[in-house]
């Protein structure tokens, strides 16, 4: 294993940790909007780490380019998707926690 390999392994591990955290976050966070944070943010960083990790395994040729293109595309679409989903959810009537609390207060008063 060369130094690049070690670096690559580290990146892969990190990517795995981020990804796993995101997935766990899907279950652990209290409401939809917080869960979207978990998913979106860790998804992106997981993708970055893993793809960079893989890129280090290549001979730095077309394969690397393709990997980077995947990364580019994921970074482009990931947040876009999350944003669109959040927007839809808001339009669909889903409330965030602060809004819920306010509403509850309104109901009381």
């Amino acid at each position, binding site marked *: *294993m060369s130094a690049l*390999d070690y670096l*690559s*392994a580290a990146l*892969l*591990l990190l*990517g*795995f940790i981020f*990804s*796993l955290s*995101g*997935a*766990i976050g*899907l*279950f652990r966070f209290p409401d*939809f909007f917080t*869960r*979207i944070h978990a*998913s979106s943010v860790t*998804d992106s960083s*997981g*993708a970055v780490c*893993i*793809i960079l*990790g*893989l890129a280090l*395994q*290549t001979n730095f040729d*077309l*394969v690397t380019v*393709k*990997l980077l*293109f*995947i990364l580019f*595309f*994921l970074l482009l*679409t*990931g947040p*876009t*998707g*999350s944003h*669109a*989903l959040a927007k*839809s*959810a808001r339009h*669909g009537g*889903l409330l965030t926690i602060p809004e819920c609390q306010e509403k509850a207060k309104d109901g009381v008063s």
Partner: protein
Amino acid sequence: MDSVLAASGLGILIVMAIALARAMVAPTVYDRILGVNMFGTKTVLFIATIGFIMGRPDFLDIAIVYALINFIGMVAVLRFFEYTSESN
């Protein structure tokens, strides 16, 4: 190094499984979509990794397709979800 790649492949699989679980059991539909989306992204990574595990990394085109389709699927879900309501 092969074992590292394989391990990370397995790791991604585990994440996929968790996302799958979210997609199957979710409090709201949006959570479900979230799970599906995450599953899709992870599959892209998984496919990319598999190419390296099997020693044929020139199949990354498939991963690209996955990413494209995952995005379009996500958009389609949101688009058509507007029209459907629970009561319908």
